[in-house]
């Protein structure tokens, strides 16, 4: 299997303060790969500040990693030049969390979408470009007649977000890095947009890295999942397994916090009260989740746990000390696409 995009031990450190430098490890040693002949939807999940957007920015080449490398078809993206860089740009497309800043505010939607269609030689003629643009808009539930003549600031947040999804439809890249693509869309449209993301995978063979803090939508569209806590992967595996049997206490907290759309299901009554976040500045020597973990014991504070559980699931937690060590690398290169 050949990899289109590979992230190899990515780490990104931000430092704050001029004199007493505080290091904030936003992304800590994350590897992942996207295969050419095996389109998949990989979920990156975690709470606010866990490093999701930082990881996405690195995968897209917008931000350089402090350590590690991102490879496009085997080559470090930061060594690509000219046509090679252009090819990477075209084939690895973003859908952003906050679409406010993305578009040139003086261009109408029309131009925002038609331009890349022509630029990348996707449409042969202007007429064809317009037709493709209208198709793409309808795919994401927007009315071309109402949308095309507007400027970005004349659209609602959810509408702008869908324009970026439409743009991805149009460009048909190899990989889409989608950072909270449905966060500003209401429930009734969310299903439509998520279904169209899935269609991108099944019909056009596009792989998607789907970034979210919402495990419900992750479960509906994802194949494999990485759960991030303060920059590190704390649990990884097949979405079905992870959601049905969350094993890391942090994954359990995320799952238990979901407000289930059924008034008879209690809302995380079994969650322990120590869950409050904002522990950012606590120094971490052991498990990063220990200060919030209801199961923490002495061991957890001292050194970081290994990844364990089994062949297709990795959990970074001392509760699984008796389980075999999981080789994340070999797990990553296995086929994790699930059959829907």
């Amino acid at each position, binding site marked *: 299997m050949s990899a289109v995009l590979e992230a190899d031990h990515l780490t990104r450190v931000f430092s704050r303060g001029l004199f007493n430098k505080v290091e904030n490890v936003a992304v800590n040693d994350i590897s992942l790969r996207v295969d050419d002949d095996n389109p998949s939807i990989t979920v990156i999940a975690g*709470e606010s500040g866990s490093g999701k957007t930082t990881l996405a920015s690195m995968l897209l080449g917008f931000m350089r990693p402090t350590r590690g490398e991102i490879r496009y078809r085997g080559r470090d993206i930061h060594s690509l030049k000219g046509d090679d860089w252009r090819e990477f740009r075209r084939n690895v497309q973003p859908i952003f969390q906050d679409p406010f800043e993305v578009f040139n505010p003086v261009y109408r939607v029309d131009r925002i979408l038609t331009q890349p269609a022509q630029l990348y030689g996707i449409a042969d003629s202007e007429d064809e470009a317009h037709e493709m643009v209208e198709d793409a808009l309808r795919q994401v539930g927007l009315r071309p007649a109402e949308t095309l003549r507007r400027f970005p600031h004349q659209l609602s947040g959810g509408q702008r977000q869908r324009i970026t999804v439409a743009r991805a439809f149009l460009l048909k890249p190899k990989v889409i890095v989608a950072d909270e693509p449905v966060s500003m869309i209401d*429930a009734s449209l*969310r299903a439509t947009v998520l279904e169209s993301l899935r269609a991108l995978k099944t019909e056009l063979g596009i792989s998607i890295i789907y970034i979210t*803090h919402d495990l*419900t939508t992750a479960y509906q569209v994802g194949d494999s999942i990485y759960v991030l806590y303060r920059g590190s992967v704390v649990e990884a595996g097949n979405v079905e397994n992870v959601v049905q049997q969350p094993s890391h206490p942090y994954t359990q907290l*995320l799952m238990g916090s979901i407000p289930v*759309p059924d008034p008879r299901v209690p809302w995380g009554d079994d969650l322990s009260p120590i869950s409050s976040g904002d522990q950012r500045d606590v120094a971490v020597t052991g498990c990063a989740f220990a200060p919030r973990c209801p199961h923490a014991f002495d061991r957890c504070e001292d050194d970081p746990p290994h990844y364990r559980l089994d062949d297709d699931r990795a959990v970074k937690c001392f509760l699984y000390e008796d389980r075999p060590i999981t080789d994340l690398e070999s797990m990553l290169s296995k086929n994790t696409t699930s059959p829907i």
Partner: protein
Amino acid sequence: MTSANGEAVLKVNNLSVEYETPRGMLRAADGVSFELRPGQRFGLVGESGSGKTTTALALMRLTQLPGRIVDGEVLLDGVDLLGLSENEMREVRLAQISYVPQGAMNSLNPVIKVGNQIANGFKDHLDSISRSEISERIVEVLRSVGLDPAVSRMYPHELSGGMKQRVAIAIAVSLGPKVIIADEPTSALDVVVQREVMLTLRKLQEEIGAAVLIVGHDMGLMAQFASHVGVMYAGKLVEVGQVLDIFDDPFHPYTRALIASLPSTSRRHRLTGIPGLPPALLELPGGCSFNPRCDSVMEICRSADPSYDQIREGRWTSCHLYAEAAT
């Protein structure tokens, strides 16, 4: 529309709000009627642009031009807020009916310390309160929302999103109002913090016995938080009922489609959205506004507007399918 168990604290009758736009008058809230009883948590749901914020703002008399309240009554303990002078309204706001605006985290004043922002409410509404009493009350409300009293000396930018949202809630409950209106209080927060903030709001609301109107589009949140649900579509309230009834047996075809489109964590399935698009408010179809998207549409739906009727005790809907069941 009063029910047997307890008097309504807030009664909204036939409230309509219009925005003047270059292309004509846009009616964003159209004849909205419902009531809140003490202790109720009423979830107002509907897709983006359906008129939720417009309705919430009108209840607070905070509608801004080009918007105008064109009709209706908002009775707070029998007093029509729409008839009060601006000065009288200022007395009522915060003390009796308070508001947590959409994007409240960003509504805090960035250059004023949190404690002083909370203190302003006490100073404006309690004439003879002393400085030391104010300090005590600030500590008390911060504790009540689970924040360290030290937060009172901090500026908003020093707080996380969840902490800012707690401050906004602290301000809203600080004077023990009868009604709290919260517009999408947690839509910018992640699930873990959302749950903590909502449980805090519920605890406080129960303690002071206030009624809460919570605006949002997350049906999961409504299922967990609300005791009653009202569904808006294209400016109209199309269904109201107790939360269990709405989820177990939705009446209106829009409510049914909304509930059917919800993703679940117990089963993977193809997601089906509601077909079609929300209507443009300036070009509403004739008859029932939902008719182009409705799976039960009948001939009459294209010509006549369905009336908003009580179908069963506490269950209201506006749909021709229930014309005969109306009481």
